[in-house]
């Protein structure tokens, strides 16, 4: 079902049906969007649930100024950013290294099915600043268009390209230093 049809369905009074369509259409994409930042499947699951609850609550205010797809991604991305900030604060107070913790959790993650190169890439990406990390994940892993990312992050295509370039250079340097 197209986004327009879902919105039409929602406005016709079938809110629950429309919402079920949104969940069916977007849960997998949003899960992997969130999963790239969450340290474990359980955390990603919690964040995904919170995201959909927020979508459900915010749907009456959806005016259609933005596309449903970017609007939903923006809610999910805000959840991710809040999660990362809370986590960073937790690490500050617990005096543990966020980086070391990420690596050890990735090593022990039963749901990580990638190879060594993917693991190294994820670790290198996790060292990036928040926005560069987001842009890189959305562009490289999720293969999103800059135009869509700019709508989601409320940024210009030019600055996103610059962020991606900086992220790419840092990752390249990080991976070449390891070898």
């Amino acid at each position: 079902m197209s986004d327009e049809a879902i919105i039409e369905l929602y406005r016709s009074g079938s809110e629950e049906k429309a919402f079920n369509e949104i969940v069916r259409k977007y849960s997998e994409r949003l899960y992997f969007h969130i999963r790239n930042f969450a340290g474990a499947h359980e955390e990603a699951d919690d964040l995904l649930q919170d995201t959909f609850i927020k979508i459900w609550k915010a749907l009456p205010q959806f005016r259609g100024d933005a596309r449903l797809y970017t609007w939903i991604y923006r809610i999910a991305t805000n959840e991710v950013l809040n999660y990362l900030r809370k986590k960073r604060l937790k690490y500050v107070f617990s005096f543990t290294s966020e980086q070391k913790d990420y690596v050890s959790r990735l090593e022990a993650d039963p749901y990580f099915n990638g190879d060594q190169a993917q693991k190294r890439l994820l670790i290198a990406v996790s060292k990036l600043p928040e926005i560069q990390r987001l842009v890189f994940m959305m562009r490289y892993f999720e293969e999103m268009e800059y135009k869509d990312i700019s709508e989601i992050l409320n940024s210009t295509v030019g600055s996103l390209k610059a962020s991606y370039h900086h992220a790419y250079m840092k990752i390249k340097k990080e991976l070449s230093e390891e070898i």
Partner: protein
Amino acid sequence: MKKSPFIVPDGYFEDFASKMHPWETEASTGAAAGRTVRVHSVGRAVRYACSVAAGLAVLVTGTLFAFGVFGSRQADGLEEGYLDFLYSDVMPMADPEAIFNPDFDVADSAEEISQEDVMEYLINSGISAEETYMLLAESY
């Protein structure tokens, strides 16, 4: 979208879609949900208050420490410096000879200066005779 290096438990997305019914939670919890939110809000407020209090405590302790330890030394130093400045003289004595002659004897008090000394000083200091006379007349 590239293939993610992460996998999910079997049937995860089907289960997720079937349990993702926020309207059911809203209907079943009702007023209780409101209370939960309130408890969370109070808990959050307490956490914020504690954070602010801890921050203020650190700030006050730091300030007291800085002024208590360094501040007192600065104050002492300032006082000493000020007193040194107050009781110091650019030239230790009025007589230039004293600079080159450390054994130059300076009268300790006014009582040691006789009238003759005053007269001699006035005569030799280049003051006119009339002024010297007037000063002498005033002093007697």
